[in-house]
């Protein structure tokens, strides 16, 4: 079967959301509206979640989701399938978010150590703080809130590495920092998250005690 015939066959298979991703990509290249919608439906959750985690703001996340898909669809004619479509889209979404963060003058990766007074990788001890572990006392919602509270630079690296699964060398390429910087930021982000989660847990415990009186 020639390429042209294969494309024609694919076009004949198009039936709303029953499209496979490959069929939808070919359909979108031809300008088919439902093929675009199918691709959107397949990947919207992943892209939106990424945008939401990186910005911590639903309105911005929706704007960025729209922008990411728009950029993708504008370039869909150039997609040749060398990499997975989801990888391509994901990278584009990350770039869109980072671009937006830069426009807002939020430091993606602070050049200086943002945790003033702390040495690289060193955790300050909390005298008198309970040492019980977090496991079992926090859920996804707590973690989500704490991630949203992270400074933008830490949040970006944490989301890319721990949430999205990028390696440090990939993050360095995407964000434009050194691998060492990426590792350092990630560690600080995790430490900061631990602080936030422990603080939230302590506040919750205090509120609970006060409420019982």
């Amino acid at each position, binding site marked *: 079967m020639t390429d042209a015939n294969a494309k*024609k066959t694919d*076009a*004949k298979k*198009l*039936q709303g959301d029953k499209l496979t991703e490959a069929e939808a990509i070919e*359909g979108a290249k*031809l*300008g*088919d*509206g*439902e093929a*675009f*919608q199918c691709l*959107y*439906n397949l990947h*919207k*959750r*992943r892209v*939106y*979640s990424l945008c*939401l*985690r990186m910005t911590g703001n639903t*309105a911005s*996340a*929706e704007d960025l*989701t*729209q922008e990411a*898909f*728009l950029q993708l*669809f*504008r370039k869909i004619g150039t997609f040749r399938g060398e990499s997975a479509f989801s990888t391509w889209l994901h990278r584009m979404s990350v770039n869109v978010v980072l671009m937006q963060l830069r426009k807002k003058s939020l430091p993606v990766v602070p050049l200086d150590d943002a945790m003033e007074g702390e*040495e*690289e*990788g*060193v*955790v300050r*001890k909390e005298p008198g703080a309970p*040492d*019980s*572990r*977090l*496991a079992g006392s*926090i859920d*996804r919602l707590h*973690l*989500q809130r704490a*991630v949203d509270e992270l400074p933008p630079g830490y949040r970006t690296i*944490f*989301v890319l590495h*721990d*949430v999205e*699964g990028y390696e440090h060398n990939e993050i360095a390429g995407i964000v434009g920092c050194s691998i060492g910087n990426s*590792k*350092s930021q*990630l560690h600080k982000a*995790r*430490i900061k*998250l*631990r602080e936030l*989660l422990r603080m939230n847990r302590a506040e919750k415990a205090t509120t609970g005690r006060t409420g019982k009186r």
Partner: protein
Amino acid sequence: MRYRGERVVMNCFEFERVLPDYLEGEHTAEVQAHLNSCSSCSDLLADLNFISSEARLLQDSADPSPAVWNALEIQLRREGLIREAVVREAPQAGPSLADFFRRRRAVWLVPVAVALVIAGGLKLSRPTGVGDTNPVARVDAPAPATADSNSVSNLESTPVSNEDQQMLSTVAARFPSQQARYRQNLDQANSYIRDAEQSIRNDPNDVYSQELLINAYEQKQMLYDLAVNRNGEQ
């Protein structure tokens, strides 16, 4: 580091300095020995591992609102990425909302939509009274010239306004096989309008919802436009 006999003994400060490397997989006997003897540091390690593992749960945690696709589709048509010329070869029941949009997009629709929003706003600000019992948003759009309300009476969807009924009648008369699809898209547009109106009712300064309302009216206006023009073309 202190030495206890032959063994190197690490303190907490030293542990925390090598912790990032440890988390990256560089395990040493000294670190392990410290972890075995220090509950504070082993708690710290457990927490960081816990945070890292739980983070994956945030990967696909939320869906965008339907308005995102709505706005995206409009933009794709505006830019000509969704092309009018593409017609499915596979058999289908009738045109989708996307089909409507790909065929025609008149520039004058935007000011018309804005006017409709203003009219909608006036309607919202007016208390409900006698004669205002229609359950769906009223659209002051020009109705098609031809109408045959009997031809769509067998549809089992939500009630529609008289104007909508006239449009559906036109479609029923001219494209009976696509009647259900038109109705489906009309219901969808009405649903968007209702949602946006509700949001504006809750917060009259909600610019985002106002924009959504404009988009929804644009969609509906395009349905009318397509029905009338396709009717005239044939």
